[in-house]
């Protein structure tokens, strides 16, 4: 045939294009299964953090005085990059790590700059430079540089961006000239107000037993400061007898959590978690089984942030269980708080009684099948119908899978064999999961640390998920 093979074999085409890098069929299949090409890893580089006080002071001198002309900086979005992922609804609904904004961008600025411009959160700011113009809502970020506005790129797509990306946020790219910092932009506050779709509205701790931060010097002087925030509370109830089955638990180190939110997307992909759109987020109806709570604390060096990944705490004394009228949420012998979707009638009493607010409700029929959504779904996880409650399961499908494999092999589940989706995606390994009986794992070892605490410990819910407080090391903070 003149035009070549009319029906080429796709696999053969791919193999031909890649050349002989994979050798025989066996290596090819092994590579596909593993997802990485053997022997292509970069050599590890030895790095050492440099503490250069002189450099830090020199940088401090560069700080712009707060009455200087306001500059505009363009930055890449932590969710949609430069816009290449803007048509992905998961990433559109991924909260910004610091502002918790979803579905769009904003003019980020410090409180003093907002006061200077006489704008409040949500008030639309118009920025002009040359012939370009962008209008986005103002949003105050604690710790933002003074006399400066940051706008993230990747939003404000037209039709070519795709049906999801179209019209979400404002496109700041045309403002850019040479360099990303602009001092000659015209900034004007408009009278228009919009409600920014954010998943968190309050960033203070309000003396609650959440998001602890400790100064390093303070922690060294008082290593038992958090001792009262973990362990057993006085009770009249008999202790549960020790269980023979493996008891699942999770430990999360907030010192090494960077708030990158990869865990949220991993969880969404693994557990068929739907997307609700900007209006849903405004109403507080986002479905993320795992979210990242961010708390800001004032220090002599400015605001310091702690990120606390928050998911079902799998309480041993779960407040959700005793209020469910129909046995839809119950406790499993291996320490999981389980949802039986078929039994749920949707009273939402469990959510009202969950102090951690990690339960999610199907307000509408989010499970309506669309072709792409159906193709994406994880077949091992039930898709939830309208009107039922759902929440983090500690990836129970992976636990049960490991149990089946162990039973078939006639052995036991090995330490570290079950990995949750969030743990798998965490680039800093801040999330550790496993069985309490597997004592030689980080998950169990971490629980004995002096900076371990149970969130809202005082309520006596005995959460299986424990956190390690963030330790900060700032100049000028002594015990």
């Amino acid at each position, binding site marked *: 045939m003149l035009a070549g093979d009319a029906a080429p074999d796709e696999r053969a085409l791919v193999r031909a294009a890649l050349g002989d890098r994979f050798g025989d069929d066996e290596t090819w299949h092994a590579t596909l299964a593993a997802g990485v090409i053997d022997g292509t890893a970069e050599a590890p580089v030895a790095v050492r953090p440099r503490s250069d006080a002189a450099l830090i002071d020199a940088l401090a001198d560069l700080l712009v005085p707060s009455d200087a002309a306001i500059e505009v900086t363009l930055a890449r979005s932590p969710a949609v990059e430069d816009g290449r992922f803007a048509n992905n609804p998961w990433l559109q609904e991924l909260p910004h790590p610091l502002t918790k904004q979803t579905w769009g961008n904003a003019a980020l600025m410090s409180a003093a700059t907002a006061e200077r411009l006489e704008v409040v959160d949500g008030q639309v700011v118009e920025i002009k430079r040359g012939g370009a113009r962008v209008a986005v809502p103002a949003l105050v970020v604690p710790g933002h540089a003074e006399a400066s506005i940051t706008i993230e790129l990747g939003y404000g797509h037209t039709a070519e961006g795709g049906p999801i990306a179209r019209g979400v946020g404002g496109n700041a790219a045309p403002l850019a000239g040479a360099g990303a910092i602009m001092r000659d932009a015209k900034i004007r506050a408009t009278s228009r107000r919009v409600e920014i779709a954010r998943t968190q509205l309050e960033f203070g701790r309000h003396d609650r037993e959440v998001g602890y931060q400790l100064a390093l010097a303070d922690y060294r002087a008082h290593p038992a400061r958090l001792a009262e925030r973990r362990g057993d509370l006085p009770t009249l109830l008999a202790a549960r007898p020790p269980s023979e089955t493996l008891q699942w638990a999770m430990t999360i180190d907030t010192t090494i959590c960077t708030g990158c939110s990869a865990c949220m997307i991993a969880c969404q992909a693994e557990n068929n978690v739907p997307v609700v759109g900007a209006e849903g987020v405004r109403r507080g109806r986002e479905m993320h089984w795992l979210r990242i709570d961010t708390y800001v604390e004032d220090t002599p060096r400015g605001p310091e942030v702690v990120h606390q990944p928050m998911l079902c705490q799998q309480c041993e004394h779960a407040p959700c269980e005793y209020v469910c009228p129909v046995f839809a949420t119950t406790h499993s012998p291996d320490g999981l708080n389980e949802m039986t979707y078929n039994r749920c009638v949707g009273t939402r009493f469990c959510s009202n009684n969950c102090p951690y607010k990690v339960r999610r409700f199907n307000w509408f029929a989010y499970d309506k099948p669309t072709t792409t959504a159906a193709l994406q779904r994880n077949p091992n996880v039930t898709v939830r119908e309208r009107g039922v409650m759902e929440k983090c399961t500690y990836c129970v499908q992976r636990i049960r899978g490991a149990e089946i494999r162990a039973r078939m092999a006639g052995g036991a589940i090995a330490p570290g064999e079950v990995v949750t989706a969030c743990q798998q995606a965490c680039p800093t390994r801040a999330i550790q999961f496993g069985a309490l009986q597997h004592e030689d794992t980080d998950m169990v070892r971490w629980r004995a640390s002096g900076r371990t605490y149970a969130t809202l410990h005082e*309520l006596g819910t005995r959460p299986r998920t424990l956190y390690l407080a963030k330790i900060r090391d700032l100049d000028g903070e002594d015990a």
Partner: protein
Amino acid sequence: MSDPILAGMPSEQELQRRLLGTPARRGGRGWWLAFAISGALTVVLVICVTHTISTGIGTWGTTIPVGWALAIVHFVWWIGIGHAGTFISAILYLFEQRWRTSINRFAEAMTLFAVLQAALFPVLHLGRPWFFYWLMPYPAVMKVWPQVRSALPWDAAAITTYFTVSLLFWFMGLVPDLASLRDHAPTRRRRIIYGLLALGWRGDATAWRHYRSAYLVLAGLATPLVLSVHSIVSSDFAIGLTPGWHSTIFPPFFVAGAIFSGFAMVLTLVIPVRAVFGMHDVITPRHIDNCAKLMLVTGLIVNYGYIVEMFMAWYSADAAERYQFFVGRPFGPNAPVFWTMLVCNVGVTQLLWLRRVRRNVAVLFVVALLINVGMWCERFVIIVMSLQREFMPSKWHGYTPTWVDVGIFAGTIGFFVLLFLVFLRLLPFVAVSEMKELRRELAHEEPSP
């Protein structure tokens, strides 16, 4: 004992003619206008309910953290209103308060219709309302019974019991009057209908003797229900952890609030009906005054509840409790509702100390309306505002209702009025036989000159 409970001592025939005559009266223009408005609102209710069931509970303003909102507010509000009826007919009967006679029928009907409205909400607010019966202990093939540590199955049991007993009590009281209606029915059709409902009542002495004991037994059964129903409704909140819910004062606090709002609703209805039907001699200033006094007493108990709640929040030294009562409610989202509650339930209630206010029906009508508003606000404050500010600051979120929320509430008010209007036309709204009996007793005590 200043005012009479039956003014002017009308003759028995006079009472019979006027009180029993109300169902036979033709509806005037005002009645039809009210009927049309309430009927239209009932249609709104049907539309909103259909929309909710077909689209999902997401059409409401409920969210996380505010998982319960206006539906539960209205549930508690309507159930509370229903309390005065049984209080008047059962508790006051046992205490031999004779002034109850002319308003008990009326209040019982109000109870039934209010409980009907209330019962709509717990079903509608479910994510899957078609499975509401899973909260009832019925012999299910799945062999899963309700989880009885949760307060919701108690609630389902309490409300169905309350409705059943209230209905029986109301119907029982109606039987002699239905027999009278049968005997005086102008048309054959009415004679048959009223005759069937009268259950063959002939009014002989044996029947009356049995009737009296049965009525007393039912009153005895209904009395604990007045206290238990709202106690159980309050458990829906009190057994929870939420700051603002987790409180041992809730059962008595809720019962007092229920009777408070119930009497406010009795006055809201009785003052216009008394004027329209010219029943000033049967429903005398004494009745109105007594209702107002009961409102004052229960209102003061409610005010005491507010003080105790706030004191305990401060005394507990718990950050979440203190924030809830001293920052979240007075200054947080929807704070105007909190202040309206204080103005109506604490401020306006104190007006009832004044005899002049209790005797002035126009002012009292406004006071009763404001107390209805205040008690609605109280339920909103307890339910919605507590959930807005819970333990995790990261999940603090406000609440805004949608048009469906508002439509359903307006619809239940319309449906309530509609049922009431139909009741006024079909049945005597003052217990005729009891009034005649009361007249005899009064005549016996102080023979008329």
